[in-house]
């Protein structure tokens, strides 16, 4: 390796780095910064909703908060966190020296910070930030949009380009750089879920880019893609958006499935139950994600045949998802369980994600959805799958691999406190939202009827608790990296399997410069 053997020092190390571990770390730190920012927006929302009536902010700003909260959390926090884990872990899990396209890897990360600067800067522009929701439905996002919508569009374009580059890199790495003997059906589940996720990303990010390009043209170049007056159709926007948007929610959750599939076997001290069925279930979920998009828009006036098709197709996704949940539970069955922080978060994921899955099934019922549509029930549902699903699994993953990454052990007690405060805070926040939603409270409103006051106050208190618990997480991670107890065991967790646990701890800057001989089998 010669000149590339050791990292250069100072800022240039991070700016010019092509090392997958450096870039993975950058992604994860960036994502945590965005998580804090998106969380701050959520705190503003919950503070306004603490009591009925208009208290703190005006309705326009409220709408900007919900919009930016959604965009920052989805595109800035959750997706980059998983890309960071992928960057750091996939090469060491498959025995590759680095990602396949290291320079493109650098570019795809460094596109992100300016992009989010662009997006968040709209808050300070005349007319304010976009306030049309992260879904950006036309004509709210075209005819009635603030001038800053153009910045939103460019931000989506650039973050899409970044995601596509990241995904091409991941696919190219997994398909071409596996160590000899690392067959596809021996790959760790995390690698499998990311392979499938990356395919989803390259398929649908261009669709989103197309949709926002049409918005751009409608706004600035007098086209009428989404304008009925010129022969276009605003409903077309919803179809295109959700053709992207539904696979997008699986892009968010599939890597989470991967992380959980690594952690549960470790702390059950048993191999993952039903490895191949996990792979097939993941592929089935990914395939079906392309044929269910219109369940987000049952109320636009589809023909009954369309409603039925999308309803049954959506319900069908519960089958492979159920297979996965069954396999995780069965992995734990009669295992020698221990409950370190990663396992707590994984079990929390399992319970809460399943609740989110059930409310998803309720929403999939077309006739019932006319009642639930655009209520807080939907908000409760997708926070159960996105926060308790994706965010819990990211947290679990960070605790799980942090000792390997840093060579230091995090504070277990603080980790457990973080889990319990998060778990309780999360449920206080979002469980009551099921009730107010079923009772008819619409989403994206800065004020609400008096009958919802108590549950909303509970939600807000829960949100503040959950928000504060993330500060504990940040402190724990920083304290570990800076001054945690040194721990140089190769296998931090005695039940862990996989190539990443065969390299020294902390992981050296370069690993697997000569491919390992794969004796490990992901199934065992």
């Amino acid at each position: 390796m010669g000149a590339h053997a050791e990292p250069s020092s100072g800022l240039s190390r991070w700016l010019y780095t092509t090392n997958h571990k450096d870039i993975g770390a950058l992604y994860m730190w960036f994502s945590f910064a965005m998580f804090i920012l998106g969380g701050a927006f959520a705190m503003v929302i919950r503070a306004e909703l603490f009591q009925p009536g208009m208290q703190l902010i005006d309705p326009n700003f409220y709408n900007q908060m919900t919009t930016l909260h959604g965009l920052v959390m989805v595109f800035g926090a959750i997706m980059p966190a998983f890309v960071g884990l992928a960057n750091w872990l996939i090469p060491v899990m498959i025995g590759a020296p680095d990602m396949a396209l290291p320079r493109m890897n650098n570019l795809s990360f460094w596109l992100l910070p300016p992009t989010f600067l662009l997006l968040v800067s709209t808050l300070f522009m005349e007319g304010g930030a976009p306030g049309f929701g992260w879904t950006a439905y036309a004509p709210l996002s075209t005819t009635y949009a603030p001038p800053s919508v153009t910045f939103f569009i460019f931000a989506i374009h650039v973050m899409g380009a970044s995601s596509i580059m990241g995904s091409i890199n991941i696919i190219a790495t997994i398909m071409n750089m596996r160590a000899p003997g690392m067959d596809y059906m021996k790959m760790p589940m995390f690698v499998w879920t990311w392979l499938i996720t990356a395919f989803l990303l390259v398929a649908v990010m261009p669709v989103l880019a197309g949709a926002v390009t049409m918005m751009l043209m409608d706004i600035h170049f007098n086209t009428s893609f989404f304008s009925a007056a010129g022969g276009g159709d605003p409903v077309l926007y919803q179809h295109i958006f959700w053709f992207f948007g539904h696979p997008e929610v699986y892009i968010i959750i599939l890597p989470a499935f991967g992380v959980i599939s690594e952690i549960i076997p470790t702390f059950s001290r048993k191999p993952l139950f039903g490895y191949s069925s996990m792979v097939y279930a993941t592929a089935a979920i990914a395939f079906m994600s392309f044929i269910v998009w219109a369940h987000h828009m049952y109320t636009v006036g589809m023909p009954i045949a369309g409603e039925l098709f999308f309803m049954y197709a959506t319900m069908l996704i519960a089958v492979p998802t159920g297979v996965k949940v069954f396999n995780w539970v069965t992995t734990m069955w009669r295992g020698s369980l221990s409950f370190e922080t990663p396992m707590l978060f994984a079990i929390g994921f399992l319970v809460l994600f399943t609740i989110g899955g059930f409310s998803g099934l309720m929403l999939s019922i077309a006739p019932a959805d006319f009642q639930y549509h655009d209520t807080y029930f939907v908000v409760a549902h997708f926070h159960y799958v996105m926060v308790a699903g994706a965010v819990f699994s990211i947290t679990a993953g960070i605790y799980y691999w942090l000792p390997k990454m840093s060579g230091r052990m995090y504070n277990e007690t603080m980790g457990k406190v973080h889990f319990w405060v998060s778990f309780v805070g999360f449920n206080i926040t979002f469980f009551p939202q099921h009730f107010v939603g079923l009772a008819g409270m619409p989403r994206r409103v800065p004020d609400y009827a008096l009958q919802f006051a108590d549950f909303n106050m509970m939600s807000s208190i829960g949100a503040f608790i959950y928000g504060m618990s993330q500060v504990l997480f940040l402190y724990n991670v920083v304290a570990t990296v800076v001054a945690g107890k040194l721990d140089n065991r190769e296998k931090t967790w005695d039940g862990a399997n996989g190539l990443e646990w065969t390299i020294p701890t902390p992981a050296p800057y370069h690993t697997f410069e000569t491919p390992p001989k794969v004796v490990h089998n992901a199934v065992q």
Partner: protein
Amino acid sequence: MQFSRNPVTDTSIKLFLFTCVMGASVFFVMIPLYNVLCDALGINGKTSGVAYTAMTTEVDTGREIQVQFITQNNSDMPWEFDPSTTIVRVNPGALNDTYFIAKNITDQHMIGQAVPSVSPSRAAEYFHKTECFCFESQPLDANSSVEMPLRFIIDKDLPNDIKTVTLSYTLFDITER
């Protein structure tokens, strides 16, 4: 197909081309497909945007369909826009005439565009317009009004359970500014 001898480059090129195809498909596949499906299935209550070339069909005198006309203005379109009659009873297969009245109450020359929608949406594909002001935009001088003709046939294949069909027009301001 192989683009490069380096397998990593080869995979990357294929994936890049795939993203380009997906991006282009939004414009060149999804939109035409959506329009074709909407036309074919009458989704969204969209009626055909071109004139129906009337064939002499026999009139089904056995049943009468109630046809209602509704008009509305999009957002801040200032014209007055009304149907001449709000309800007619017609026989399927028969050719019917009616007209709508638009009045530009502003002091400026403006151009309007009416966009039709049929409810229930299942009826859209049986609502044939042989002549409609909605096929073209409607310029109107300041403070003038116009009678805009509509000539339509309700297809005699209209499902029997549909007794009432509502034709709604939304008038948009498409004046170039």
